[in-house]
């Protein structure tokens, strides 16, 4: 019964995780089914465990596995192991450990913002005369759509000015609570990874220049 219906180019682009034009209902639902199925399959597949490493190393080393001259161990950075440790080494190890086990990994990473304490006022504007509500949603709002509602001005121009930290910010406008649209005046549009786009601005100390 294999009528081989190839996916349309739009469906392939969708499956690649890139923004795309409209596609047929069948294509869309089959594409989603393929994604679900693949995800279900991928969840069952796991890499061989650490036992494999031991097996390899046993075959590879001429002496048995795991023998290591102590002098080398003392001077090299090591993953944590349960071995007798000398007092002077303890402090060094502890420091290494403490540094490596910080909160949330090596360094806390604020969302898409470089290390900078300064903030700069940045204005956002959208021409949308038919909209009844527009909000600004982005990395600076943790993608909450209820935080930054924009003010309507004459001529159907919606506007909002926010203090933003120096660095890169991703965002979109949300019109009437449903339509997500990019900012044509942003520095760039980038793939958000989900099949949509995010507008990107990079905020410098002198603010943002957009056309």
């Amino acid at each position, binding site marked *: 019964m294999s009528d081989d*219906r190839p996916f349309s180019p739009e469906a392939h682009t969708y499956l690649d995780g890139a923004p795309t034009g409209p596609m047929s209902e069948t294509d869309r639902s089959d594409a989603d089914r393929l994604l679900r199925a693949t995800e279900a399959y991928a969840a069952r597949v796991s890499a061989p465990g650490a036992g494999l490493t031991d097996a390899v190393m046993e075959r590879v080393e001429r002496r048995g596995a795991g023998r290591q001259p102590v002098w080398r161990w003392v001077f090299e950075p090591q993953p944590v192991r349960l071995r007798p440790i000398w007092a002077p080494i303890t402090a060094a190890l502890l420091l290494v450990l403490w540094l490596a086990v910080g909160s949330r990994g090596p360094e806390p990473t604020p969302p898409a913002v470089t290390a900078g304490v300064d903030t700069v006022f940045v204005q956002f504007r959208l021409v949308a005369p038919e909209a009844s509500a527009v909000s600004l949603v982005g990395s600076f709002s943790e993608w909450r759509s209820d935080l930054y509602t924009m003010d309507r001005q004459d001529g159907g121009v919606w506007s909002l000015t926010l203090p933003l930290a120096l660095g890169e910010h991703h965002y979109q406008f949300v019109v009437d609570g449903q339509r997500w649209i990019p900012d044509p005046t942003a520095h760039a549009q980038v793939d958000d990874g989900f099949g949509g786009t995010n507008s990107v601005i990079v905020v410098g100390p002198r603010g943002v220049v957009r056309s």
Partner: protein
Amino acid sequence: MEASDGSVVREVLAGDAERYRILVDRYRERFGRYAVALVGDPDLAADAVQEAFVKAYHGLATCRDPDRFGSWFFRILTNQCHDARDRARSTEDVSRLPLAASDRTDAEVDRAELAELIEHGLATLTEEQREAFVLKHVEGRTYEQIAALTGVGVDALKMRVHRARDTLRTVLGEQL
């Protein structure tokens, strides 16, 4: 704390065999799932991965660019996996449906069935299609990354992935 591939390779070649462990752990994690998906059977895949690491160790001096150990090892592993799969290939009955267990929820059964279908579907793909599809959809890499790993151009990769998807679509569709 973590050494680069190149520096570890150089240390091993200088005589410190124990350092190879770092590469084994690193690439067991990075490519392990790919190997399992390629071979189909987790135990056979583990054997293939082990063989590949041992071969890579013995042939380490022939790795021209130690900083690109990953891509070099990837090729060795892929070949080993294809061999394992060929040796193990029994009659695959693609039309066999998984038995539904009565103690699972509908959603779980559906998920398990879908996963089985993908597993069977992968068996019907060509080697290149399977490699490309697994890297793209099971490992979740971009085309550029896959190109860097396999040495195949992005356009050719896309074609392989597209064909794989079309085949799998049919396999998934046969349930209806």
